[in-house]
């Protein structure tokens, strides 16, 4: 029976692929990649909860939905974009998976630096784009990566050449404009930091309008030797959004990548974060903060692979859950033979603010080297009654005391955010979300 279901769900995607393939961007390699990915998706179909990697995240609502797989861009103006267009950034905007050049702002981009639509880059024969797209994010075991790889229409290429320090962050705004038939889009982001370069990129996912949709991005970051990449992701889509994303990091010798993934939007949210530390002396700092309420589900699947010796990876994830929200944190650290002097640390902390909220935290350490330091810690708890009493004993009301302590729980992620616009956005969100947020605003 289940095979029938798989092929039923898969068929619309195969049909859409056949219809679209002529117009999808890419040269020979990318075209072949698309074909292989579509074929693979046909074989594996959507995952179900019997599969270990999807045990707590049931994507059958996605499999059941009939999406428009080729939505049009719609028309937006600057006012629609205002909440997401941070000042002092290079900005690129994708609407329903299409690049919106009229909403983008690349004024002053240093020569030699590429920040452009991915389709246009491939069309113009960008060797870097043609060579690197899909080289890192493996689709064979991940149906959503397969779907994205087969069906992406556009996306973004960021390439900072050797030795260049990009002066301003790149703000990538990925908007969905649902309404009417559910729609799905598959943005593709490729970031290449060449040797000894440095860049900051902010990915924002947001919604204008109401209705079901699926945003299914794949972001690949290639950090060449001695490069520095500071990445932020702000997932703030509507409560009708499915968001299934893969973030793939490939690090070469002495590179330093840090990422902060903030998630408060969406209905069903899944993030696969994979980092491969391929050269000696890499450092990866992968942090995250998620705030979910109602029936929201947020799932972070982390996989950090230490391939080379002398690499550090640090993961700190914090979750705040209300209502009957659920979270999944699956943290895998894989230390290859020979990756001596690995220093891997993983921490996941969850704060449950209601009885019905539920979190599943599952650290998985696989270590095949003998001179390494690997630690993991996972906590689930409520607000501390003594701390609440302490604050109340100073005259702070109970609700405000709870909010202050909730803010305090999130604060060490907030404080790590180095892009002021992002940090401020998160703070403002917390002040809005937390009861008596005006008192919190005053007290922090």
């Amino acid at each position, binding site marked *: 029976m289940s095979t029938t279901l798989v092929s039923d769900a898969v068929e619309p995607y195969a049909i859409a692929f056949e219809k679209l393939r002529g117009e999808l961007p890419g040269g020979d390699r990318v075209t072949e990649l698309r074909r292989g990915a579509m074929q693979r998706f046909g074989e594996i179909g959507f995952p179900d909860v019997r599969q270990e990697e999807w045990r707590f995240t049931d994507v059958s609502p996605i499999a059941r939905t009939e999406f428009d797989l080729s939505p049009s861009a719609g028309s937006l103006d600057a006012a629609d974009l205002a909440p997401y267009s941070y000042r002092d950034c290079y900005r690129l905007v994708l609407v329903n998976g299409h690049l919106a050049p009229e909403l983008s702002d690349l004024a002053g981009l240093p020569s030699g630096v590429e920040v452009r639509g991915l389709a246009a880059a491939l069309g113009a024969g960008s060797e870097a784009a043609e060579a690197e797209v899909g080289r890192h994010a493996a689709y064979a075991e991940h149906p959503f990566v397969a779907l994205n790889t087969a069906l992406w229409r556009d996306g973004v290429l960021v390439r900072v050449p050797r030795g260049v320090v990009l002066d301003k962050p790149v703000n990538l705004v990925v908007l969905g404009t649902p309404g009417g038939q559910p729609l799905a889009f598959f943005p593709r982001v490729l970031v290449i930091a060449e040797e000894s370069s440095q860049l900051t990129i902010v990915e924002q996912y947001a919604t204008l309008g109401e209705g079901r949709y699926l945003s299914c991005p794949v972001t690949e970051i290639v950090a060449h030797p001695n490069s520095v990449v500071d990445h932020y992701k702000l997932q703030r889509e509507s409560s009708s959004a499915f968001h299934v994303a893969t973030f793939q990091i490939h690090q070469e010798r002495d590179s330093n990548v840090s990422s902060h993934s903030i998630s408060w939007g969406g209905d069903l949210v899944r993030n696969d974060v994979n980092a491969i530390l391929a050269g000696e002396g890499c450092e990866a700092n992968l942090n995250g903060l998620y705030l979910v309420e109602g029936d929201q589900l947020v799932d972070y699947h982390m996989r950090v692979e230490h391939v080379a010796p002398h690499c550090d990876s640090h993961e700190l994830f914090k979750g705040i859950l209300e209502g009957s929200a659920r979270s999944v944190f699956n943290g895998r650290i894989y230390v290859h033979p020979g990756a001596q002097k690995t220093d891997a640390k993983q921490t996941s902390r969850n704060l449950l603010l209601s009885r019905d909220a539920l979190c599943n935290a599952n650290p998985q350490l696989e270590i095949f080297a003998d001179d390494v330091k690997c630690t993991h810690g996972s906590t689930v708890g409520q607000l*501390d*009654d*003594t*701390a609440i*009493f*302490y*604050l*109340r*004993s*100073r*005259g*702070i*009301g*109970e609700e*405000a*005391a709870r909010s*202050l*302590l909730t*803010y*305090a*729980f*999130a*604060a*060490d992620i*907030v*404080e790590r955010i180095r892009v002021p616009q992002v940090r401020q956005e998160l703070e403002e969100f917390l002040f809005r979300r937390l009861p008596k947020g005006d*008192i919190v605003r*005053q*007290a*922090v």
Partner: protein
Amino acid sequence: MSLLEIKNLYARAEEQEILKGVDLTVEPGQVHAIMGPNGSGKSTLARVLAGDAVYEVTDGQALYKGQDLLDMDPEVRAREGLFLAFQYPVEIPGVSNVYFLKAALNAIRKHREEPEMDAMEFLAYVREKMKLVKMEESLLQRPVNDGFSGGEKKRNEIFHMATLDPVLAVLDETDSGLDIDALKIVADGVNSLRDDKRSFVVITHYQRLLNFIVPDVVHVMVDGRIARTGGKELALELEERGYSWLEQKVATGAAAPVEA
């Protein structure tokens, strides 16, 4: 009217009875010391007065300014002028000491129908209070008690007390574990706040503090009640003889509280 009038107070935590009929009256401007062995209920009394929900009051009453104290939420007690200096102050990372105090003071002022202080006014006000406890500016900017040493935490409690300007301050073993310099700073802070309206209940395990904060009345608590009440000379007697003679008397039912 007495500032605080506790009559026959019983309280328990989980299934254990801890306070077993406490009587205590504090007049405006008085400093009361409560001494006693570990486990006698001193800290429980302090926390019951401040409204810690861990404890359930099973009998008796506590009137504060003639009102039923036990009926008030902890924050209302604070806004009405009750302050508890915690034995173990809580660390609140991410919340700045000074901004938190401003929010607390403004909550209290609002309750008293006084205008809220703006940032400039508050900073000027708080700088005066810092001098009282020789607080370093850096402790002001840091998160509440986060990474503070034991002595810094206790000083910070006194600093909170000075800033929030209470009518009745309860100090729960604020002296424990302090070196002599820190102890003097704490005592100086309390002494400088003494006046004919403000009252203190100083809970301590050690007589040493009372060399620096001279109490009007000394109580000894044993097994959940006030077993003995006297003047400051009672503290000296305890220093010499320890608590065991009183515990024995309580056990045989011979210790009758003496009015001060």
